[in-house]
């Protein structure tokens, strides 16, 4: 509310400035056209109007009461010089020329006096003086100049009240839109987290998609179809709002338990890579209980390492050795494939760093990579228990 009040004041001040300057300039044109004002009062009045315009510009910036006072003083000064400095014969003509100044110019500060009682009082007082002066100069209270001035003062007062009233109204509507938007953001965030949370699912989907990106070459057609059908089924479940709860996701157990046994899940990883043509031999521990988020990260990292072996090592077999103590569980993924120069693989490459190292680090683990051209690759994965 504080900010929109500030914006409202700025809007009112800039309206003041536009109305005031425009009306003062129109009056200048009218006065100069009339050719009725002697040089001395004319120059004085033009100077006063210039001061008034300057004060209006500064008022538009800060809205201080001093600038209101200066605008009013300069405007009244110009009015007095013009109306008292001419003969009785041409006074009504000059009076009709100063109507924009007396009406719009002097009334404009009225719009931006919210919270400035002194400025408001000064403006109203100036308005009374203006109307009396114009009535005297125009030859009576019911002449065209007087009615024009009074009309514009009333209109500007209505404008001021109306703009100040419409902004809180629109602000309430905006805030209700904002509330709806916040609710929508939370809902969409929850939805995104649910989808992102289904990372095991996405991991198998990604693996299948990657195979399909190579047209499914290298995998038996039947296995490919089964895998695709299974993944499509899981994605459908996810879309229909359920967090997939199948016993087997084709490969991984997706049940959300507080702790899951590592052994049976490892077996399903082995089966999955078996179908893709990579024989995985397990050594070491069979049953380890891990918190589900750690298990997720650990299995995903392991699957990613095996996928790298399958794709890049050029061999059909990989060895996974799993050992654990009270605090950590370690997996060593070894192959006797072509290997590579670690320094040659850019650290920016998303694959290993993002999918293996970062996943494990998120749960407090780590991964190390050892390789040399011609002598295979070893990855050590660590996760806390």
């Amino acid at each position, binding site marked *: 509310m*504080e*900010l929109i009040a*500030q914006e*409202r004041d700025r*809007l009112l001040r800039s309206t003041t400035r*536009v109305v005031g300057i*425009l009306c003062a300039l129109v009056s200048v044109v*009218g006065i100069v*056209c*009339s050719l009725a004002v002697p040089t001395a009062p004319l120059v004085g009045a033009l100077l006063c109007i210039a001061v008034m315009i300057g004060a209006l510009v500064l008022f538009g910036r800060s809205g201080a009461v001093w600038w209101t006072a200066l605008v009013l003083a300069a405007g009244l000064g110009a009015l007095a010089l013009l109306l008292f400095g001419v003969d009785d014969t041409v006074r009504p*003509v*000059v009076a*009709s020329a100063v109507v924009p100044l007396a009406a*719009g110019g002097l009334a404009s500060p009225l719009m931006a006096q919210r919270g400035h009682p002194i400025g408001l009082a000064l403006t109203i007082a100036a308005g009374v003086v203006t109307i009396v002066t114009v009535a005297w100069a125009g030859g009576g209270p*019911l002449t*065209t100049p007087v009615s*024009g001035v009074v*009309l514009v003062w009333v*209109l500007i007062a*209505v404008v001021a009240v*109306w*703009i100040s009233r*419409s*902004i809180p*109204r*629109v602000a309430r*509507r*905006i*805030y209700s*839109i*904002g509330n709806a*938007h*916040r609710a929508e*953001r*939370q809902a*969409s*965030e929850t939805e995104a987290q649910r*989808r*992102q949370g289904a*990372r095991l699912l*996405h991991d198998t989907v*990604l693996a*299948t*998609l*990657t195979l*399909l*990106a*190579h*047209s*499914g*070459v290298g995998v038996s057609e039947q296995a490919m*179809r089964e895998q*695709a*059908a299974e993944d*499509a089924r899981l*994605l*459908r479940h996810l*879309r229909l709002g359920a967090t997939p709860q199948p016993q087997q996701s084709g490969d991984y157990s997706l049940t959300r338990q507080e702790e899951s046994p590592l052994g049976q899940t490892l077996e399903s990883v082995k089966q999955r890579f078996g179908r893709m043509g990579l024989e995985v031999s397990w050594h070491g521990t069979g049953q380890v209980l891990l918190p589900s988020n750690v298990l997720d990260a650990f299995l995903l990292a392991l699957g990613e390492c095996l996928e790298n072996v399958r794709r890049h090592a050029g061999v059909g077999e990989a060895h996974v050795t799993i050992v654990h103590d009270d605090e950590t569980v370690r997996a060593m993924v070894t192959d006797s494939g072509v290997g590579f120069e670690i320094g040659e693989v850019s650290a920016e490459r998303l694959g290993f760093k*993002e999918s293996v190292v*970062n996943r494990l680090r998120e749960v407090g683990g780590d991964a190390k990579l050892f390789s040399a051209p011609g002598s295979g690759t070893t990855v050590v994965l660590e996760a806390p228990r």
Partner: protein
Amino acid sequence: MSRVPEDTISRGLPGDTVQPAPRTRREARERYRGSERRQARGLPSTSTGARSLRQAAKPGASLGAGYLGLGAAVLTAIEAVAGIAFFLIRWDTLSQPWFPAAAWGLYLVAAVAVGISVLTYGERLTGPAFALICVVLACVVCLDFIGIWPEHDIVHTATASIAAGYALLPIATLRPAREVAPAIAVLGVAFIVMAVTSTPVTTDTLPGMVTLLALVVVPPSVALFVVHRFRQLVQRELDRVLVQSNVQAPQFAVGMLASDELARLDLAAEKLLDAVANGTDPLPLSDASASVAASLATELRLHLIEGRRETWLYHAITESDHLGRSVSVADPGSLAGHLSPAQRDGLLQALWQMVGDGRVSQPGVPVVSVTLGPVGSAGHPVTDETMDVPIVFESRGVPRRSLGPTAWSALERIGPYTHSVRDGVLHVVAHCVVSRHPTM
């Protein structure tokens, strides 16, 4: 965020609806403009999330205009009452008072008709209705001019024709400025022509004519200005309120749009996998389908990582029309996610204040740059539980002395700060003490 054109994925997938081609040139232009702008900011242009954001921003054009229009109608009514009173006072002096009387009658009938239409059909004015109103107003002006012609003194006799200028006030809130401005111009020209032909131009009458012309033309022009500024204000406030919802977001969020994108990618993957499973797409896959699978995998991977990298601040800046244009953020350590809601609020408020009206002086140079971190630099201690994140603002927008107390109190909500001015650029360094283990 992915810069891959979105259509590469859905191409060729069964069951996908293709967006129909634009029917008019204007439609095509607008669609192109909108999507180009969003893509330049890395936002998806066609997802449901993008649409919902656009819809949220759309009411800004008309939000509050109805009430403003009612206010303008009050002004018109006041002027009309004054004009009728003035006309009745002068009745005896006119040689043909029935023409202006007919003009006023037509004016009142039109006003009542517009009032009933607004009450019945709501606060909107269609193009044909606007054209009809313009024709009626032209008739009013003509009748008034015919009636006062014999007097050869337009300044003291014109009444209903002046009211026609004020009738444009409420219209300015309902129709775009590019339609109302020509109407104002035509009215002004009509007055000039009438004044010059009907009344002898002397130094005695000219000032009155200038005043009369101003009385007719200035109010609707000012109304256009006020409505324009009012809409700007509403748009800006709406933008600010929508962005503000990020203050409550978790440490890392995927953002409104990414969630939709992820859903869309999942659906595309599901369709592809289904097609493979039931043999619609025979194995081995064709090159086209294989490339669809490849781009799907890439985008899915990117989207799955995405949420873990980007903080609420990133989303706030990219989602906002105003801030997105003029603020750049450097937060390599994703430290913004650690800020508490109060600190986030302070940071956003300070940005809004510093951006000002958001005008970019040099293209390519952001008005405000914010840098978070690095943590642990001199004077910014780190303990086991908390750390002092240096937040550095470099503001080229609003000059220091124009920054109001709101900006400084917003900065105080972030933490203790120091500021200096170098080469017209305001530097603010805030010490933002945050928990190292945020709960959000």
